[in-house]
C-alpha cells in the first residue's frame, strides 16, 4: 500500500489542507520528507492518516476543537495492490464512516485487506517510530539480557518490553509459590489455614463444659441477687431513720413559728403577688400625676405654632402649571433645564441639515442620476456588500476560466502518443514470488544437522533403547527424588537398627547366662534344712523345759546355735532368690527389647525389599543396569529429559526440511505452469532466471504505459475543470444582473458597478445623516414654542407683567419659590395639629389610670389591719406575717412527705428511738456492710458471666470459618493466576525460541547490514554468541572488540534497535507485503554522519515500500536531499 496524497479536509486546525507525496522517478526510492516547524501540525497529520486507515477515535476527540466531532473529515489517495489508486475519505460517524470519492459508504474490508489484517496498535508498533520509541527501545533490548528470541521479537513487532513482561509474570508466579519459599502467598495462606484449624479445635466448647459454666454463672447470679436485696433493705432502714429524724426536727420548728405569729395583725393571707401589685399601684399613681402636669405645658406650645403658619391661596395653581412644564422633555432632559441652549442649538442643527442635502446632490450628480430621489439610491449595507461580491465574482471566474483553458492546452501538447500496453503477468509474478520464498533449503538443513549433532551428544551415554524409554514415559522427577530420599533413609535406618539389634542380642544373652548361673547356686535350696532345725529346737525345748540344768542349758544353747545357722542359711537363700528374680526380670526385659529391635529391623528390611522392587521398576524405566542404585536416577532422568526435548526439536527440524522441500517442488511446478501461459519455456533449472528477466522487462513496459495513462486521465480532469470554470462564470454574471435590475444606474456592468460602489456607499452614509438631523430640528422647534406658552400663564397667576425679552426662567424660579414656601407652612401647621390632638388624648388617659390605680389599692387592703401605716409599710408587715404562716405549713408538709416516702413500720421503730445521737452512724455502718457484701457478690457474678461469655464467644468460629473461606478463595484465584503466569512464561519462551529459529538467519543479516551502515563502519559485524542462559546479540567493532548489547552506549543501543526495526520491516515487507513506514524526528540525536547513514537505510525502505519522514530540522531536510536520490521534500500546509 502507498500513501499518494493526504487530505486534511476538516481536521484539527486544518481546513481543506493537502499533503501530496509524489511518486519517485524511475529507479529512485520512495521516500518523502515532510518538513514543518514545531506546532505546524505534523502529529495532527500523522493521526489523521491513522484515523483514515482505522476509523476515528470514539468519544471526545482531541482534534475536534475547530470543527465539531461529527464534522471531522480526512481523505487520502492510496495506492492499493490490486485496486490501483483509490480515493477514500473517513468521517467521524460510528458506522459506515469510510467513503469513496463520491462520498458513498464503502466497506472497511478494502483497507483491512490492504493492511494485512493489522489493527491500529499493531500498525503503530510496527510501522512508526519516534525519538522516544527509539531511545526506550534501545534500553529495553539491553534488558533482554541475551535472549535472541526477545530481540528478534522486538524487531518484528516493535514491542520491546518482552523481558519485563516475562520477569513480571515469573515474579507473580513465584510470589504465589516457589519451592522452599518462606514468604510466598501460598505458604503464608497455608500456615494461616493450619493456625485456624488448630484454633478451631482448641476453642471448641463442649456441651458439658458449657453446662458447668452456665451453672456457675447462675449460682453466682443468685448470690448476687440475694446480696442486692439485703442492700436494698439496709438502704430502706437508713432512709426510715433519716425520715424519723426529719419528722422530729420539723415538729420543733412548727412550735417556734406559732409563737412568732401572735405578734402580727390579723387578717386573711395576702394573695400571691399582692405585695408586688401594691408596689406597682403606688408607682402608677405617682407617675400618672407627673404626666398630667407635663401634658398641660406641651398643649400650650402647639397652639402657638399653629397660629403662626396660615395657608397660601395661589400656591395650588402655580404648582399645577409648573408640573405641566416639567413634563416637557427635550433630548431626554427637562425643557426648563435646556431652555437657555435650545434656541441656539436649533439654529446650528438647521445649518448642518442643509449642508448634508447639498453633499447628497453632489453625489447624485457624480452617479449621473441627479433627479432620482436620494432614498432610492441609499441601499442597505448588506445589499452593497452583495453587490460588491457579485461584481468581484464575475471578474474572478473570468480569470479562472482563462487559466484552466491554458492548462488544458499545455497538457494536450505534452501528452504525446500512447506506448504499447503491458502484458498481464500477475500470475507469473505470484508464482515467482512463491518460488523465491522456498528457493533456499540450506538453512533448514543446517538447522537439522545442528539439532542432530546436539542429539548425538546428548544420547552418547544412553542405551540404544532410549527412544523406547521416553515413549513408555519417564517416572516423575518427584517420584525419583522420593525413592532416593527413602532409600538413603532406609539404608541408614537398617544399619542403625542392625547395630542396635546386635547390642540388644548381646545384652539378652548376658542376662540369660546370668539367670542360668543364679539358678545353679545351692544356697537357693534351703527351706527343708530350716524346717528341720526348727523342729529339733522345738523338741529340745519341749523335752527339757521342766528340768533345766547346765547340761540342759548347754544343749539348748547348741540347739539355738544350730537354729541361728539355719536362719543364716535362710537369709542367704532369700538374697539368692531376690537375685534370681532380678536376673529373670532382666532376662525378660532384654529379651523384649531384643525382640522389639528385631521386629523393627525386620520391618525395615521388609520396607527395603518393597522399595527395591520400586527401584528395580524405575531402574528399568530409566534404562539403567539392574545393579545401578537410585543415586544414578537423577542424572539419567535429566539426560533422558534433555534427549527427549532435543529429539522433539530434531523431529520438528526434519518436518521443516521436508515441508520446505515439498513446497519448493510445488512452487517450481506452479512457476512452470504460469510461465507456459505467457509463452516462457525452458528447463526447470534455468526457468526461474528466465522468469526473473521477463518480469524485470515487463516492469519497465508497465511503468511507461501507466505513466501515459495517468497523463491521459489528467487531461480529462483538466477538461472537467474548464467546464466547471465556465459554469461558475455564468452563475456570477446572472447573480450580478439580478442584484442591479432595480438600480437606476446608467452602467450596470461588473466594472461599472465596482466604480459606482464608492459613491453609493457615500450616498448611503449622507442619507442616514440627513434623516437624523431633520428629526432633531423638528424636536427643537416644538420645545421652544411650549416654553413660551407656559411662562405666560405663570406670570398671570403671580399677577406680574411679562416682557417678551425677559428670561422666562426668572418667572419660573419665582413661581417655584412661592410654591415651596406655601408647602413648608402647610407641613408645619399639619404636624402641630396632629401633636396637639395626641397630647390631649394622652392627658385624658393619665387621669383615668391614676383614678383606677387608687381604686385597686383600696380593694387590696380590704379586711386587713394596720390602717395607720403608709401603703408600702403596711404591705411589708402583712407579707412577713404570711411568710411565717407559710413556713409553718411547709414544715408540716415536709415531715408528712418524708414519713410517707419510707417504710411505715421501720419509720415508727426509728421514731421511738429519737432523740439518739449515734443512731445515724449505726445505720450507715449497716448499709456499708451490706454494700460491701453486694459488691463482692456482683463481682463474682460478673466474673462467672464473663467466663461463660468468653467461652461462648470463643466458641463462635464464624470469623475463623469466614477467614478460612476467604483464604481458600484467594489461594484458588492466586493459584490460577500463578499457573497462568507460569504457563504463559513457558509458552512465550518456547515461542521466542521458535522465533529465533525462524528468523535468525535473514533477520540477523539485515540487522548487521543496517547497523554497520548506520554506525558509519565503526562497527564491523553483529554476531550471535551462545551462552549458558541462551543466545546473545553482540556487536563487533572494527578493532575486533566485541560488545554485548547491554554494554553499548545509549545512542548505539538506539541505533541497534533501529537496525532491528528495519530488519523487521524487511521481514514483513517480504511477507505479507510492504506498508508505509512513518518516522517522526528520529534522527535528531544522530550526528550528521550517522543521520546520513540512517537516511540511506530509509532509502532502503523506500526501495521495497514507502518511507515517510517527519522533521522540524532544516539541516535534516538538506541532509536527506543529499543522501537520498530523488527524495521528495514537502512542506506542512498552512
Amino acid at each position, binding site marked *: 500500500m502507498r500513501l499518494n496524497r493526504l487530505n486534511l479536509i476538516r481536521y484539527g486546525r486544518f481546513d481543506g489542507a493537502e499533503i501530496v507525496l509524489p511518486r519517485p522517478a524511475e529507479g529512485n526510492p520512495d521516500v518523502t520528507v515532510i518538513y514543518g516547524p514545531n506546532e505546524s501540525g505534523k502529529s495532527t497529520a500523522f493521526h489523521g492518516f491513522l484515523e483514515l486507515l482505522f476509523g476515528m477515535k470514539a468519544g471526545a476527540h482531541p482534534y475536534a476543537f475547530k470543527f465539531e466531532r461529527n464534522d471531522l473529515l480526512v481523505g487520502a489517495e492510496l495506492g492499493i495492490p490490486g485496486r490501483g489508486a483509490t480515493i477514500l475519505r473517513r468521517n467521524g460517524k460510528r458506522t459506515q464512516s469510510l467513503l469513496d470519492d463520491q462520498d458513498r459508504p464503502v466497506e472497511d474490508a478494502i483497507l483491512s485487506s490492504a493492511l494485512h489484517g493489522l489493527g491500529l496498535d499493531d500498525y503503530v508498533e510496527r510501522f512508526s517510530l519516534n525519538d522516544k520509541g527509539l531511545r526506550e527501545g534501545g534500553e529495553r533490548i539491553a534488558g533482554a539480557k541475551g535472549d535472541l528470541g526477545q530481540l528478534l521479537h522486538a524487531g518484528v513487532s516493535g514491542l520491546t518490553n518482552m523481558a519485563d513482561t516475562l520477569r513480571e509474570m515469573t515474579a507473580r508466579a513465584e510470589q504465589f509459590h516457589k519451592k522452599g519459599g518462606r514468604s510466598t502467598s501460598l505458604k503464608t495462606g497455608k500456615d494461616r489455614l493450619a493456625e485456624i484449624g488448630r484454633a478451631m479445635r482448641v476453642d471448641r466448647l463442649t456441651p458439658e463444659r458449657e453446662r458447668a459454666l452456665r451453672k456457675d454463672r447462675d449460682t453466682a447470679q443468685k448470690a448476687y441477687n440475694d446480696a442486692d436485696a439485703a442492700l436494698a433493705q439496709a438502704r430502706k432502714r437508713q432512709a426510715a431513720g433519716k425520715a424519723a429524724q426529719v419528722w422530729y426536727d420539723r415538729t420543733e420548728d412548727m412550735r417556734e413559728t406559732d409563737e412568732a405569729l401572735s405578734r402580727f395583725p390579723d387578717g386573711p393571707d395576702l394573695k400571691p403577688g399582692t405585695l408586688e401589685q401594691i408596689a406597682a399601684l403606688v408607682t402608677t399613681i405617682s407617675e400618672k400625676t407627673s404626666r398630667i402636669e407635663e401634658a398641660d405645658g406641651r398643649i400650650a406650645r402647639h397652639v402657638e405654632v399653629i397660629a403662626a403658619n396660615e395657608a397660601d391661596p395661589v400656591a395650588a395653581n402655580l404648582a399645577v402649571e409648573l408640573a405641566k412644564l416639567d413634563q416637557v422633555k427635550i433630548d431626554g432632559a427637562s425643557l426648563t433645564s435646556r431652555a437657555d441652549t435650545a434656541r441656539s442649538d436649533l439654529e446650528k442643527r438647521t445649518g448642518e441639515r442643509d449642508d448634508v442635502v447639498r453633499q447628497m446632490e453632489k453625489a447624485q450628480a457624480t452617479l449621473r442620476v441627479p433627479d432620482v430621489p436620494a432614498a432610492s439610491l441609499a441601499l442597505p449595507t448588506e445589499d452593497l456588500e452583495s453587490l460588491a461580491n457579485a461584481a468581484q465574482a464575475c471578474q474572478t471566474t473570468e480569470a479562472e476560466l482563462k487559466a484552466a483553458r491554458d492548462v488544458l492546452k499545455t497538457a494536450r501538447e505534452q501528452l504525446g502518443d500512447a506506448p504499447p500496453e503491458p502484458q498481464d503477468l500477475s500470475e507469473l509474478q505470484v508464482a515467482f514470488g512463491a518460488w523465491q520464498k522456498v528457493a533456499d533449503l540450506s538453512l533448514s538443513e543446517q538447522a537439522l544437522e545442528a539439532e542432530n549433532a546436539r542429539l548425538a551428544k546428548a544420547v552418547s551415554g544412553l542405551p540404544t533403547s532410549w527412544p523406547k524409554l521416553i515413549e513408555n514415559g519417564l517416572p516423575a522427577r518427584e517420584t525419583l527424588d522420593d525413592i532416593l530420599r527413602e532409600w538413603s533413609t532406609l539404608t541408614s535406618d537398617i544399619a542403625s537398627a542392625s547395630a542396635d539389634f546386635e547390642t540388644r542380642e548381646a545384652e539378652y544373652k548376658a542376662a540369660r547366662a546370668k539367670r542360668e548361673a543364679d539358678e545353679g547356686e545351692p544356697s537357693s535350696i534351703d527351706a527343708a534344712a530350716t524346717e528341720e532345725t526348727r523342729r529339733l529346737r522345738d523338741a529340745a525345748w519341749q523335752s527339757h523345759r521342766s528340768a533345766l540344768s547346765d547340761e540342759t542349758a548347754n544343749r539348748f544353747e547348741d540347739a539355738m546355735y544350730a537354729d541361728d545357722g539355719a536362719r543364716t542359711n535362710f537369709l542367704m537363700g532369700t538374697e539368692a532368690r531376690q537375685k534370681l528374680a532380678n536376673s529373670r526380670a532382666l532376662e525378660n526385659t532384654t529379651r523384649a527389647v531384643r525382640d522389639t529391635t528385631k521386629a523393627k529391623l525386620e520391618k525395615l528390611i521388609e520396607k527395603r525389599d518393597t522399595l527395591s522392587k520400586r527401584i528395580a521398576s524405575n531402574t528399568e524405566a530409566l534404562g539403567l543396569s539392574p545393579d545401578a542404585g537410585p543415586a544414578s536416577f537423577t542424572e539419567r532422568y535429566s539426560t533422558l529429559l534433555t534427549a527427549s526435548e532435543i529429539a*522433539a526439536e530434531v523431529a520438528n527440524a526434519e518436518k521443516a526440511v521436508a515441508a520446505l522441500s515439498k513446497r519448493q517442488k510445488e512452487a517450481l511446478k506452479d512457476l512452470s505452469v504460469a510461465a507456459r501461459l505467457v509463452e516462457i519455456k525452458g528447463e526447470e533449472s534455468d526457468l526461474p532466471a528466465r522468469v526473473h528477466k521477463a518480469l524485470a522487462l515487463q516492469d519497465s513496459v508497465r511503468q511507461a504505459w501507466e505513466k501515459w495513462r495517468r497523463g491521459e486521465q489528467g487531461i480529462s480532469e483538466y477538461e472537467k475543470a474548464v467546464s466547471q470554470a465556465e459554469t461558475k462564470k455564468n452563475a456570477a454574471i446572472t447573480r450580478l444582473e439580478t442584484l442591479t435590475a432595480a438600480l437606476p444606474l446608467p452602467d450596470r456592468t461588473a466594472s461599472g458597478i465596482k466604480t459606482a460602489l464608492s459613491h453609493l456607499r457615500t450616498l448611503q452614509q449622507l442619507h442616514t445623516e440627513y434623516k437624523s438631523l431633520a428629526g432633531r430640528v423638528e424636536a427643537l422647534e416644538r420645545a421652544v414654542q411650549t416654553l413660551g406658552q407656559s411662562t405666560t400663564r405663570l406670570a398671570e397667576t403671580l399677577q406680574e407683567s411679562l416682557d417678551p425679552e425677559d428670561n422666562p426662567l426668572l418667572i419660573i424660579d419665582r413661581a417655584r419659590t412661592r410654591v415651596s414656601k406655601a408647602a413648608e407652612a402647610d407641613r408645619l401647621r399639619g404636624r402641630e395639629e396632629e401633636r396637639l390632638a395626641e397630647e390631649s388624648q394622652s392627658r385624658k388617659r393619665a387621669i383615668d389610670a391614676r383614678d383606677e390605680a387608687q381604686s385597686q389599692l383600696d380593694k387590696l387592703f380590704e379586711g386587713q389591719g394596720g390602717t395607720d401605716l403608709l401603703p408600702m409599710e403596711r404591705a411589708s408587715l402583712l407579707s412577713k406575717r404570711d411568710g411565717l404562716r407559710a413556713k409553718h405549713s411547709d414544715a408540716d408538709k415536709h415531715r408528712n412527705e418524708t414519713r410517707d416516702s419510707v417504710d411505715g413500720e421501720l419509720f415508727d421503730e426509728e421514731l421511738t428511738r429519737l432523740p439518739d445521737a449515734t443512731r445515724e452512724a449505726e445505720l450507715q455502718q449497716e448499709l456499708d456492710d451490706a454494700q460491701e457484701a453486694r459488691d463482692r457478690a456482683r463481682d463474682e457474678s460478673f466474673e462467672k458471666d464473663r467466663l461463660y461469655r468468653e467461652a461462648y464467644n470463643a466458641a463462635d468460629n464464624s470469623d475463623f470459618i469466614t477467614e478460612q473461606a476467604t483464604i481458600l478463595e484467594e489461594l484458588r484465584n492466586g*493459584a490460577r493466576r500463578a499457573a497462568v503466569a507460569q504457563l504463559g512464561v513457558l509458552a512465550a519462551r518456547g515461542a521466542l525460541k521458535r522465533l529465533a529459529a525462524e528468523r535468525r538467519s535473514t533477520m540477523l543479516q539485515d540487522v548487521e547490514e543496517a547497523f554497520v551502515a548506520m554506525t558509519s563502519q565503526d562497527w564491523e559485524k553483529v554476531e550471535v554468541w551462545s551462552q549458558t542462559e541462551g543466545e546473545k546479540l553482540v556487536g563487533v567493532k572494527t578493532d575486533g572488540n566485541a560488545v554485548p548489547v547491554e554494554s553499548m552506549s545509549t545512542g548505539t543501543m538506539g541505533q541497534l534497535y533501529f537496525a532491528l526495526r528495519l530488519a523487521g520491516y524487511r521481514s514483513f515487507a517480504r511477507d505479507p507485503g510492504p506498508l508505509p513506514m512513518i518516522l517522526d524526528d528520529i534522527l535528531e540525536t544522530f550526528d550528521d554522519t550517522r543521520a546520513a547513514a540512517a537516511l540511506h537505510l530509509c532509502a532502503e525502505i523506500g526501495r521495497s515500500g514507502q518511507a515517510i519522514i517527519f522533521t522540524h530540522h532544516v539541516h535534516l531536510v538538506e541532509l536527506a536531499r543529499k543522501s537520498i536520490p530523488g527524495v521528495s521534500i514537502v512542506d506542512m500546509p498552512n
Partner: protein
Amino acid sequence: MRLLASADIHLGSPIRSAAMRNPELGDRLKQATRNAFIRTVDLAISESVDALVLAGDIFDKDQPDLKTCAFLLAQLTRAADANIPTMLIRGNHDALLDHGAHGDLGPMIHLLHKGSPSVEIRDVWFHGLSFDAAHVSKSFLPDYPAPVQGRKNIGLMHTSLDGSPGHDPYAPCSEKDLMAHGYDLWCLGHIHAPFEHTSDSVLAVMPGIPQPRHFGERTGGTVALVELGDDAPTIERYEVGKLAFAECPLDLNECSDVPEVLRELRTGLQGLQHPEHDTAVRLRVTTGHHTTEELTSLADEVLENIDRVFLDKVKVAPPELKDNSKADDLVRLMREELNEPGFQLASKQALEELRTALPREITDELTEKALDALLEEAINEVTLSLHAGAAE
C-alpha cells in the same frame, strides 16, 4: 394448611467470594446466611403459617459452634412463640448433630428421625427421616412410614433424587417412586437450585438454598410458601437472600483509554444496583488491552462510589481474532508451541507441581482437565501484558 418450606440453610457456612477481602463488607456478608434465616422466620410469622419445615442441612457442619446453635434455637423459639411449630430433619452436612446438646428443643420443635419419624400437627401428619451418617448411598424411601389414611401427609426428605449434575448421590431416590408413595406433599432438601415437580395432586418442592454462598449458587435465594387444601397443593416463592450473585458481561475492546474503560465499567456496574439487596458481580470482560489485575483495580475504583455492588471476580477473555489477521507472530508461535510434546510434558509437570502444593480443598482448580483453558488464558495474558506495556 399453609406451611413455609426451606432447606440447605447451611448456618455457619461462609460466603465464598473475593469480596470478603474487604473487611467492612466481609462483616456484612458473613451475616448474610443468618439474616436470610431471620427473614424466613419473619415471613412465617407475618404470613401466620401453620408450620415451618426445614428439610436438612440446617448447619454447615456436624458440630456447629454454640452461638450458631443458640441462634437457631432463638429463631425457632420466636416462631414457636407465634404458635408456629417447626418440623426438621438432619441432612448430610449435619448428620451427626445432636440438636439437643445445649438444651431441650421444646414442644414446638420436632426433629424427625428413625426413632420418631412422624408427628401430627393440626390434623396433618409430617413424616421424615434424618441422616445419621455423612454419606448414605441407599434410598430412604422404603423406610418412610405409610401415609395415614383419611389425613393429609407431608414428607420431609434430604435427597439427591435421581442424581443431579454437580452433586454426588446422597440418599438417592427415584422421583417416580417418591410421587407414588402416597403423601400429598414432599418438602425436599440437598439440591441448592430451587425447583418443583407436580404429578397428579402430589407436589414435590426443592426450596433451594435461601442465601447463595457463591456464584455457582446464584439461582437460589428463596423459600417456598405451600398451601395444602382440598385441591392440589399450590406454591409461591419469596426472596429472603439479600446478597445476589450476578454476571456482568462487558466488551471493552473498543475502549481506547482508561477513562473510557472506567465509564463503561461504571455504566455496567451501576446497572446491577438493586435497592433491596447487595450484589456480588462476576465481571466477564472481553478486551485485548487490559489484564485481569488492571481491570480488578479499575473495577474496585469504580465500586467505591456505587453502593451495594461489589466485586466477586474478574474474568478476562480476548476478542476473537480476525480470520485474516497475521498480526501477532508471538501468539501464532505460542500456539504452535502448545502442540510440542516437550512443552506439553513441561506444562503438565509445572501444573502438577503447583497443584500438589495447594491445600486439598482447592486442588480441583488445577487439574489436568483445566490445562487447555489455563493455556488459553496464559497466551492471552502474555499478549495483553505486552501490548499494555507498549501502550504506557
